[in-house]
Every structure is written in C-alpha cells, then in structure tokens.
C-alpha cells in the first residue's frame, strides 16, 4: 500500500471514529508541521500553537477532504493559511501593545521573525537550526513563506503562486529577493564569526 493510499485509508477510518487511525495520521505529519512552524515562527511555543491549530483545522475539515489532491498538499495548505493567520494576529497584538510607545516603528520589526523572534526559547541545542532560524528571522514573512515553500517543501513557483494567490513572476522575484537577503545575512555572520 502506497503512502497516499495509506493516508486515505487512515482518513476513512478516522472518519468512522477510529481514534487509532486519527493518531496515526497525526503522528505521520506532526514532525513536518512542527518543523515548518519552527522555521516560520522562530520559536517552539508558536510552532506548537501553529501545529495544534493545523491539526484542529484538519480535524474539523476532514470530512471535506475529497482526495482530489494529496493529503500532504492539503494539510500544508491549511498549515500555510494558519501560519499567515498566526503571523497577522501576532503582528496586530504587537502593534496594539505598542500604540503610543513607539510611533515610528519599522513594520518589519513587528513581524514574528523580528521582535517576537526568540531563538533562546528553542528546544534542544541544535545550533545549526538556530542559525537557520536566525537567518530566516531576518526575512519579512512573505519572503520567509516563499523560502519555506520553495526550499523546504520543494514546491514549484507555479504551485507557490497558486497557494499565495500571486503571479508566478512575483513568486520568483520574492524568492530571489529572499535569497539575496539571506546571502547578505550569511556573509555578515561569517564576518562576525
């Protein structure tokens, strides 16, 4: 039985009330979603929040999954939407709490990757991952999402464009701009180290 067939079998069983099938389905994707969250949100607390929201979304909408696309694509689409929502909520929260404190705040500072970015909260001592998170944290959320989709999930620019509702050219331009920014950050890190 292929992975896709197995996913479908698990979904069918979960819809019939099998807690075991549901748990197996969650176990199969939780690591990918959690690591996706870590890279996007920059800390384990937000990554856990994102993961739980994603699986809650999956649970609520499981009956709507028709099997037209792969389950992995479907779940990552939910993850993408939740990540955007969570970023927006955090941005609003940050700007709300800062009203009157700093009037001329850089918009980038309000994004999760900047002010709310907390590498010290990372679980474990995976230095390499922390460096990557620090690098990604320098990117605005739109670019970070493109990098995540392109490099970590190996999506094509067309798929990214569809997912983000932008043109393929915009996706390419954003990805290139992100890489350029990462290059500068990487060079700065090398100079500092």
């Amino acid at each position, binding site marked *: 039985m292929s992975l896709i067939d197995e996913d479908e079998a698990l979904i069918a069983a979960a819809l019939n009330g099998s807690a075991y099938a549901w*748990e197996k389905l969650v176990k199969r994707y939780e690591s990918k979603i959690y*690591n996706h969250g870590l890279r996007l949100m920059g800390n384990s607390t937000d990554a856990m929040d994102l993961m739980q929201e994603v699986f809650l979304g999956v649970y609520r909408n499981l009956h709507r999954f028709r099997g037209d696309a792969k389950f992995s694509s479907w779940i990552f689409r939910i993850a993408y939407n939740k990540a955007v929502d969570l970023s927006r909520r955090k941005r609003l929260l940050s700007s709300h709490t800062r009203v009157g404190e700093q009037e001329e705040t850089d918009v980038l500072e309000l994004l999760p990757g900047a002010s709310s970015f907390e590498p010290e909260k990372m679980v474990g001592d995976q230095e390499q*991952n922390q460096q990557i998170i620090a*690098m990604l944290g320098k990117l605005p959320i739109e670019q970070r999402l493109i990098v995540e989709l392109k490099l970590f999930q190996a999506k094509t620019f067309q798929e990214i464009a569809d997912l983000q509702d932008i043109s393929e050219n915009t996706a390419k331009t954003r990805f290139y701009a992100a*890489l350029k920014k990462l290059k500068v950050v990487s060079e700065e890190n090398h100079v500092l180290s």
Partner: protein
Amino acid sequence: MSCPKTEHLLQEYFTDDLAPLIKEEIENHLNFCDHCREELEGLILAQSSLNQWQDQRVPHWDRGRELFRREHRVPGSRISFWNKLQWVPSAVSFAMLAILLLNVNIVSSDSGVSISFGVNESDSVLLESRLFAFEQQQEIAINELVQRIEDRQDSNNIELLQAVMDQTQQTTAENLDLIYAFFEQQRLQDLEDMRVGYQELVDSDYATIRSLQQIAQFVSYQGDIR
C-alpha cells in the same frame, strides 16, 4: 564592478524548468562575468546553508486524542452496556475487603450454610501453631540460603584473590625482567663509556709524549746551533 544583467539572469537561474538554451546563455555569461558568478556562488551558499536543517523532535502533546474521543463517542448499546458495568470491579474489591476485615467464615454442611464473623478460639490456636511452624520452617530455609550465599561469596572471594595474586605475580616478574634488562643495558653502556674514556686518555698520553719528543728535538737542535 556591477553587471546590468545580474538581476534578470540569476532570477532566471532559479527557475524550475530552465530551458536548455537559456541555461547555456547564462552559463556563457557566467564564464566571463566575475560579478554575476560571485553573486550566484553567494546565493547558492546561502541556499545550501538552509539545507543543513535537522528536523527537531515534536514536544509531547495529546494529538487531539481527547477531542477526537469526546466527539466520536458512539451512543450505542455496546458502549453504554459496558459503561453500566463500570461499578462492578469497585464493588467486588469492596466486598473482598469487607470479608477480610470482618473475618467472615462461610461453612457449608449437611444442615445448610452458616456464616460467622470473627475467629473462634480453636481456629485461632490452630492458626497460631501453623504460623509458628511456618515461621520456623522459613527461618531454617533463610538460614540455609544465607549459608549458601556466604559460601558462594567466600569461594568467589578466594578466586578473585587468586586471580589478583596471579596477576600481581606476573606483573612483578615482568617488572623485574624490565629492571634487569635496564641494569644490563646500563652496565654495557658504562663499559663502553669507560672504554672510550680510556682510549681518549691513551690518545692524549701519546699526544703528550709526541709533543715532549718534539720539544726535546727542538731543544737539542737549538743546542747544536749554538
């Protein structure tokens, strides 16, 4: 030195399905444009540093199990039947505890079944004598066991001691051999040193004699001249 083509060219380079012609065009340009080449190398390096990501383990969470079970609880007859019998184990445990605490005796005879609480005296004496016998039996068994363990421990200790002594003996012999070899080597070295010393002394004596002979010859030569 900057190049006007960098932006467009490198953006194309990262396209998904790069057409062979465009790829060739880019490669040709990179062959002679240092700026674009360096820029591309930097971008690839930044990209590859992201590829070092190691998936981290997910912290413990309940995987939505509770929510799932709560919402999928089937109100069927099978589940409610078992739910109704959930009190049975507790009730049985409680009854057993009561029987033990109240010393309940159930005696079945030809005249019927009688239930009594507490222990009667003859039973108590019998129980005590049996307990005493059992205690003594256990004590003997434990003593035997302890003795066997001690014996085994002693023999183990002796074996260990023997092994340590053998090892020590062997090590000592090896050490003595080493010391003897060292002294022998030192003695030979000293002899050689002495031989060389004597040889140098003899050579020096010969040199002195030769010098004296030369002086004597010189003196006698001077005498002849006068």
